[in-house]
């Protein structure tokens, strides 16, 4: 049977809009079931705030199954909270104790401006994908799917990288606000596959350079990997760096030929 946690103190970042200074506000939750998810606790608090005539706390969330990547939150300074490989929506109150004080902040990164309260704007991620995070394969002309056999280890490695949910925890956890894990995960997914070879070097150049317009630089802290709810390995960053270097050389050769 479920147990109940008592006397939870929440310090939550409130900010009425992008240009407001913002501040912490303290809320008490007297009692909550340990079966409740972290976001259900916020739902419960919001319903109370509405009943009291106050504005609900804004936070991003949607599938609540850890796959859409919409939810965020720095919980006690950790992106997605204390449980490893777990997005905020899958974090449950059984990971906390009665009497706990929990600080909840939005993602902290210059490239993710705050929209309101705990919600940030992550559209810089979309700009990176738009610049090259795809394989050009217009609808209609694809050959039979089994025409190109792909060794299982290659397909598995591509899948490991493709699992990224685009939540932004890697950026929020990085002291530099770098997006190398996000960007490299997509580069690795597509550059490992035979279908991705035609655009391999063009892709890595475009994506890395778009990333550099918005985000900080990677200095190998490894915080991103620790924060990633899908446990994507920083090995993908090495792969992307290697391809980026090769791309620069290849493209120079290309220039010389022209």
């Amino acid at each position, binding site marked *: *049977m*479920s147990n109940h946690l008592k006397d939870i103190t929440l310090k939550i970042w409130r900010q009425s*809009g992008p240009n407001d200074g913002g501040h912490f506000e303290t809320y008490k939750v007297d009692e909550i*079931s340990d*079966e*409740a*998810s972290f976001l*259900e*606790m916020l*739902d*419960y608090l919001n*319903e109370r*705030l*509405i*009943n009291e*005539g106050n*504005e*609900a706390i*804004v936070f991003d969330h949607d*599938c609540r*199954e*850890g*796959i*859409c*990547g*919409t939810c965020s939150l720095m919980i006690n300074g950790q992106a997605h909270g204390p449980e490893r*490989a777990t997005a905020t929506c*899958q974090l*449950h109150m*059984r990971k906390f104790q009665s009497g706990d004080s929990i600080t909840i902040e939005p993602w902290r990164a210059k490239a993710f401006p705050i*929209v*309101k309260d705990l919600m940030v*704007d*992550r*559209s810089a*991620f*979309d700009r990176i*994908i*738009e610049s090259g*995070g*795809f394989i050009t*394969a*217009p*609808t*209609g002309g694809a*050959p*039979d*799917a*089994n025409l190109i*056999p792909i*060794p*299982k280890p290659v*397909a*598995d490695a*591509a*899948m490991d990288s*493709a699992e990224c949910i685009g939540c932004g925890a890697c950026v929020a956890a990085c002291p530099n606000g770098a997006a190398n894990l996000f960007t490299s995960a997509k580069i690795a997914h*597509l550059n490992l*596959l035979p*279908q991705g070879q035609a655009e391999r070097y063009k892709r890595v150049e475009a994506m890395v350079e778009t990333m550099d317009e918005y985000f900080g630089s990677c200095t190998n802290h490894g915080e991103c990997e620790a924060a990633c709810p899908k446990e994507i390995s920083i090995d993908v960053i090495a792969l992307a760096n290697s391809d980026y270097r090769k791309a620069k050389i290849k493209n120079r050769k290309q220039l010389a030929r022209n």
Partner: protein
Amino acid sequence: MSVELNSKAPAGPLSDKWQNYKADVKLVNPNNKRKFKVIVVGTGLAGASAAATLAELGYQVDAFTFHDSPRRAHSIAAQGGINAAKNYQGDGDSVHRLFYDTIKGGDFRARESNVHRLAEVSVNIIDQMVAQGVPFAREYGGLLDNRSFGGAQVSRTFYARGQTGQQLLLGAYQQLARQIGLGGVRLFNRTELVDVVTIEGRAAGIVVRDLMTGEITSHSAHAVVLATGGYGNVFFLSTNAMACNVTAAWRAHRKGAYFANPCYTQIHPTCIPQSDEFQSKLTLMSESLRNDGRVWVPKNPDETRPVDQIPEEDRDYYLERLYPSYGNLAPRDISSRAAKRAVDRGQGVGPLKNGVYLDFSDAINRLGKNVVEERYGNLFEMYERIAGENPYDVPMRMYPASHYTMGGLWVDYELMTTIPGLYAAGEANFSDHGANRLGASALMQGLADGYFVLPYTIGNYLAPMLNKPVPGTDHPEFKAAESAARERFTGYLNVKGTRSPDWFHREVGKIIWDYCGMERTQQGLEKALSELPALYDEFKKDLRVTGDGESLNQTLEKAGRVDDFFQLGMLMCRDALDRNESCGGHFRAEYQTDEGEALRDDDKFCHVAAWEWTGDPMSAKRNVEELNYETVHLATRSYK
């Protein structure tokens, strides 16, 4: 009197219809495509694939999503897989068999021509997605792997671990992103449709609300596509994402699009049971688990021994017992009702006795833990995170939950609604799944509609409109819709009552779940139809929305969606009450066989019920489209 609806299914034998259609369809010259503008609302599988493909063809496309990014759409949460009649396993699959399985799974309530086309293009989807780099599971030799899925006797399901929906959505999203980068698609994110506008009977555009600023604006086009998903959240607790709603489809319905078969809702058999009163949503565990998991409950309702000490002879593997040839893979509606009956008999398991076991101990003994982990590892982890129990040691607990809605906007063969120029794709339409959807068919349908159907059929509508300008958004119809929308949202803020939108959502959901859920009766539906209007009146008088309408306000967004759920809920109950038969996901307790299976009435109800808005859902008008089966012989479904 009801109007007979014309499906516009092309002439010729079933297997030639789509070829014939494509051979005759009107084309738009490549250089003229840029003169046409198309609006696509929703950027899930159907919306993203349609927007990307239309832009590749050269149309100007404006795409709208209420999410921050198209990659968030709920298609992403589909776990198990996608069907295609590739017959890569050489186990006897074919286009005809996939077509037949889909018709039969839908309990003979889907349109033959649409379903056959779906089966035909299913093979192109796999080719397309592989070309885009979707990392489907593979054999050691490098070829694609398949598995079998609920309701099928062949292995035709392609999958990417337990995240097939994610990989397919990201594939479609990347193709859309490419078009956004190239300027072929303009994306409006965090923008929600609040009305559909028609001018002289044709779709002319939409009115949207910018969720960041509350600003209400109009957008016009030559054609509008709604790919806005299903309405499962009408039940409040469902496996849908929190923001899923019926608003776009409902607003189109209010402007003249018929709403078909709203009572066809699917209850998914394998979801984690509700654990407490705070629960905001239910989590689905992929049906693929039933390939290796065995479903059982203790024979004795008063069983008190721990699960591992209940001997075989005291366990009731009820699916294997009742349906020997399909066993644990019996279709979703049948498995769900069987679970409900077990729980209703008091044989439920877990602290609240509200679930059944899904047991992997045999599979672990037979295949080894490694193989089970390879197949289901991420699902097992997900279960442990939510339920706090390790399924390698203790059986999972499962219970059915609302998951998918087969009903939706009525569309013809071209996916056009009853409003010319307004299309509905993916879960938002009613077309392919009849009264029940088979597993791994939703991804197939969303992508079929977006990639391989709409790009042809929209051209057929646009071609004769060459050089006709896009309607101006200063037209009085747009202005009227804008002011109505402003009034509506200001109205929610001005009620200043005492209850939150969530409170009302929970209450309306409870009524619908109790009386229009897994099992329906005339008495229950009549009760729901007397309670819903009363609660809706209370909503209008006692709603409380805090905050304002000029900045981001999630409470206000929710109020608009709950308003539409109320109206849809009434229509659902009316549809369920008028359909005096049981079929697929619609189970009326009065109409069942001696063995407790759904009892159809093909003489009276072999038709689509398409509801017409008359100003109030309680007085909506029921129109019908007769379903004429030319190829399939109507049979009683048997999964024994």
